[in-house]
């Protein structure tokens, strides 16, 4: 008990000190962090620091799995977690089919751009991205429309069903998604480097990582503003007490639908970027199980807190990769990815029971949980007989 309160006070103290610093210092600190994230996949960075390149040094710059690819995959996950955080964390709605929107985004790009697609439109990648976002958003509205008017718990199962239906449809060979055969030859994002080669190719994952990192930073700024706006306040009001919010004049249905649509849009955007890097998607690219991983990321990190969602997303994807690297290092064949869903399913249960506010809690949300805990109905604690 003392350990946790000690730790709490230490993080709180750090926060107070950070907040008390001059604005310029904080900006410089943030800029340094961003620069650090951008140079993370560069080999020279590790050589400069003196890491033994080539040995599986804690899955940092390893030879076996390309670190830039690992970083890209982790960033995809972080972006998904940031998007789902709007739905689960801010508005308090449970979306279990978040991967469905990701699939919608990826398939929209694939269908519009690939020469192999049965639509035959052959758009460039960049033109297809806004369409992908719009289609994901519209599918969110179609799903949310009938369900959000009712109880939130129906939303959970409807979204779960939606993700499964997308996957079932994608698995049909006759459909436009072409099943297992999938859609190949999706074009890369545009751009030519200074040496005349295309910026985004198949050789290196670095440009894609930088692209998605940039997108994440932009989205984070947008989210921060959104949360502190009228919309964000409406979401918090709905999350805390929907009836009270409605009585105070918050159009709850409208704002819930907005939260849901914005979450879906971020999911669609992530899918579009993923398709642009992968150049090939098929029905196996979007396993439903991954929906629980995104949810686990948000819960683990701390729903309702953007920093928490980022931390959760990074941990959920990076930790198993890192463990694989460590396993290689000590000569154990251990595929942590195989146990990923089992472990994070357990993590979700344990977190909900013992630390529902997450690792990096949103202060207001943590207070909500603490309040409710105090209001326990007494009969539950009285031992039976």
């Amino acid at each position, binding site marked *: 008990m003392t350990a946790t309160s000690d730790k709490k006070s230490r993080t709180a103290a750090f926060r107070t000190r950070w907040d008390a610093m001059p604005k310029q210092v904080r900006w410089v600190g943030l800029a340094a962090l961003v620069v650090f994230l951008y140079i993370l996949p560069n080999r020279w960075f590790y050589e400069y620091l003196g890491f033994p390149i080539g040995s599986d040094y804690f899955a940092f710059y390893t030879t076996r799995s390309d670190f830039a690819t690992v970083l890209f995959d982790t960033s995809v996950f972080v972006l998904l977690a940031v998007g789902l955080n709007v739905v689960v964390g801010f508005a*308090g709605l449970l979306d279990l089919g978040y991967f469905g929107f990701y699939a919608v985004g990826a398939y929209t790009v694939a269908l519009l751009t690939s020469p192999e697609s049965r639509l035959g439109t052959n758009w460039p990648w960049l033109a297809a991205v806004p369409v992908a976002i719009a289609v994901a958003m519209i599918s969110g509205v179609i799903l949310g429309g009938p369900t959000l008017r009712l109880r939130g718990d129906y939303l959970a*199962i409807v979204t779960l069903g939606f993700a499964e239906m997308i996957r079932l449809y994608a698995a049909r060979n006759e459909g436009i998604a072409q099943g297992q055969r999938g859609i190949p030859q999706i074009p890369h994002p545009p751009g030519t480097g200074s040496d005349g080669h295309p910026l985004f190719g198949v050789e290196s994952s670095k440009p894609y990582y930088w692209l998605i990192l940039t997108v994440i930073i932009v989205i984070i700024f947008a989210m921060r503003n959104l949360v502190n706006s009228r919309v964000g306040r409406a979401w918090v009001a709905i999350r805390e007490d929907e009836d009270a919010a409605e009585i105070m004049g918050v159009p709850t249905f409208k704002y819930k639908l907005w939260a849901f649509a914005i979450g879906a849009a971020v999911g669609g955007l992530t899918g579009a970027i993923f398709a642009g890097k992968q150049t090939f998607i098929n029905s196996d690219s979007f396993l439903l199980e991954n929906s629980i991983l995104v949810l686990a990321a948000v819960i683990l990190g701390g729903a309702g807190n953007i920093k928490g969602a980022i931390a959760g997303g990074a941990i959920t994807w990076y930790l198993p990769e890192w463990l694989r690297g460590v396993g290689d290092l000590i000569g154990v064949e251990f595929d942590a990815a195989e146990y990923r869903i089992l472990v994070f399913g357990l993590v979700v249960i344990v977190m909900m*029971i013992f630390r*529902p506010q997450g690792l990096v809690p949103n202060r207001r949300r943590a207070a909500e949980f603490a309040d*409710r805990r105090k209001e326990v109905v007494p009969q539950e604690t009285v031992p039976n007989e």
Partner: protein
Amino acid sequence: MNFDELFGNFPALTITGLEQGAIYALVALGYTLVYGVLRLINFAHSEVFMVGTFTALWTWEALGHNQNTPAPAFGPLIVAVLAGLAVAMVASASTAVVVELVAYRPLRRRNAPPLAFLITAIGASFVLSESFGIGTERAPFGMPDMIPQKTVFTLFGADVTNLQLLILGVTLIMMISLDQFVNRSRLGRGIRAVAQDADTAALMGVNKNRVILLVFILGGLMAGVAALLWDIRFGFTKFNVGFLIGLKAFSAAVLGGIGNLRGALLGGLLLGVVENYASGLFGGDWKDFTGFVLLIVLLMFRPTGLLGESLGRARA
């Protein structure tokens, strides 16, 4: 659209639809009971069913039946089916109880918000299915052919098989006994009381936690029966077999009116039949979409289901 297929095989499609719908209905009872009392979608219920299918299979294998042995004679068959039924029911009910004790009760004690329950429910569901997935190496398992299908009689040109009669018969028996139990017995009165108003029921001396446990046990028992029928009829199981069945059973429960026992039966049978008509009309690929589309449309126009929701008020 293939109207010839639909109208030509109308009786046959109806009968197979009722057969599949009966299994949905048995699983739907578990969702409806828990929802009626706790207002919680027990996502882990699909895994309760999955555990039943596996344990019944293991029981049969322990008794010496496997895919290569011929269908057993009458005596051993009765033994095997009853043993499988008992084991599946006990295993499913125990799984449901474990989920309640580990995942839901601690949250109730902490007065957690509804969202927290849903999140642990989905967590519990994935933990169960993944542990079976890892344990069975994600392979599908074939079943011994316990009761070979044969046509008993013909109705409007459709063959009615022994399995269809068995499944419908068992489902009706289970349904009637559960309905009588909830509506007539002392424990059933407790369930209805908690479903109506948990706090008042507690003041009147009903032990809420015990009622909730009972509800999970009842749902688990029904899922166990459904699992055995599934094993006999469809002859395979897999770690994720529960997912689609669970989704459809939930749609069935909402269709009939969630929280309403008779609604679950009606919804299950209706969903099975509609699903079969749709597969006749649009082709088998679209069968699994029907339940989902039906659920969305229903939520738009009649969210309380056909018979209306509420376990407490359904003919109290």
